[in-house]
């Protein structure tokens, strides 16, 4: 699973870091900062939860990768 975040459209809700703190961090003002490019199987469920809870819907997960 590969993470693609439309960072230009992130508005800093910080829900991703709350739902999947192992996968998503925040920069100094609270914008999304993915901590990895490829999500290991153990963290994929929480990554999906983070993507689904993003109010701006700017987190995409490529499940093929």
């Amino acid at each position: 699973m590969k993470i693609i975040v439309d960072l230009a459209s992130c508005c800093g809700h910080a829900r991703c870091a709350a739902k999947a703190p192992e996968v998503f961090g925040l920069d100094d003002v609270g914008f999304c900062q993915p901590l990895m490019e490829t999500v290991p199987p153990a963290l994929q469920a929480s990554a999906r939860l983070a993507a689904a809870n993003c109010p701006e819907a700017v987190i995409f997960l490529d499940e093929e990768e």
Partner: protein
Amino acid sequence: MHQSKAPIPDHVPPELVVDFDHRLDPGFAVDPVGTARKLYDGPDIIYSPYYGGHWIFTRHEDILEGLRRPEVFSSCTVSVPPQSMWQEKLIPLELDPPEHSLYRNVLARQFSPKWAQSFEKDVRAGCRAMIDEIAPRGECEFVNEMAFPLPVRMLMPIIGFPVEDYARFHSMADRFFHAQSPEQNYAAASEVFAYMGELVARRRAAPGDDLISRLFREEVEGRLLTDNEILRMCFLLFMASTDTVTSATVLHMHYLAPHPGKLQMLLDDPALIPDAHEELLRRLGFINGPSRRVMQDVEIKGVKIRKGDMVTFMLGLAGLDERVHKCPMDVDFKRAVNPHLAFGGGPHRCVGSHLARVELRVMFEEWLPRMKNLRVKPGTEIRWHANMTYGTTSLPLVWDV
């Protein structure tokens, strides 16, 4: 107070016109959520003749799209009637990107997630001191004794508002947020601006260790912020520090008190408190706005919206949209997917949200265990007020001592 209706413009199809006053509809006094939710019986996009006439977006997807397209839906006017609270643009509220971003970043750095985290211990100490004093009484009037003073007194010194002016802040906030007409809003806003003008001058003369004093050293585009710009930022700081966290705290407590099962879930597992707040923020969304000015002709879901029109996004209602939220009227603290818009969306998303979340969590962590068998005082009839936000000014609670 009954608002006047404007003539319907020719480009508005009659079937989209709904006789709904989104700020002061009489239904808000009895059933705020139900009153807003009735709009879902009609078309997704409607036109209200009140406040000069404006479109209302009721659906999550349209509201999100509107908030994310500032080039079409401009913040140059953020409320209806389309008249600003001040003769100059409020910062950053009434600016669009890219100008907006310059000022927004200054505030975003102050209210960053890391700062909110570092402030948690102070919030916790404040919450404990307050509940130590109040808990032994077994009762309180929750709005004015806890939900208003805790966040307001915590934040005033951080921003640079003199704590000795607390009573005046309470009064100004009451008159602004609970106004019964736009005219009363403007009157209260002028008083806030007069007060803030004096305050900025005082801080300029004798700066302290607070946000307003630090703003004198902040730069945009290679020059220092002016007193005038700081004054125009102070209005947002006033609004943000005196209503939103209080409104959420009161509404969430008002929900929990008559739901002992839900309350017990939080007492048994305090780790659920953050998600409980997210769920209640969604389910009890209390913001009847904001509005935007349309900058170019645009068609949304087949509705032709003209340049110059005003559009209002019912943020609170978006949380009840069944197309996004399954069983939206249910309160489920374990709801897995909850992309709510209680803090707005797009570039103007609430800059204080990280602080608000810390405060909401810590208040409930510290207070709920100290209020055993918590309930609304028997015989209480809650009176709701509406306008830009809905809420109540009195919530008497009792608990076992």
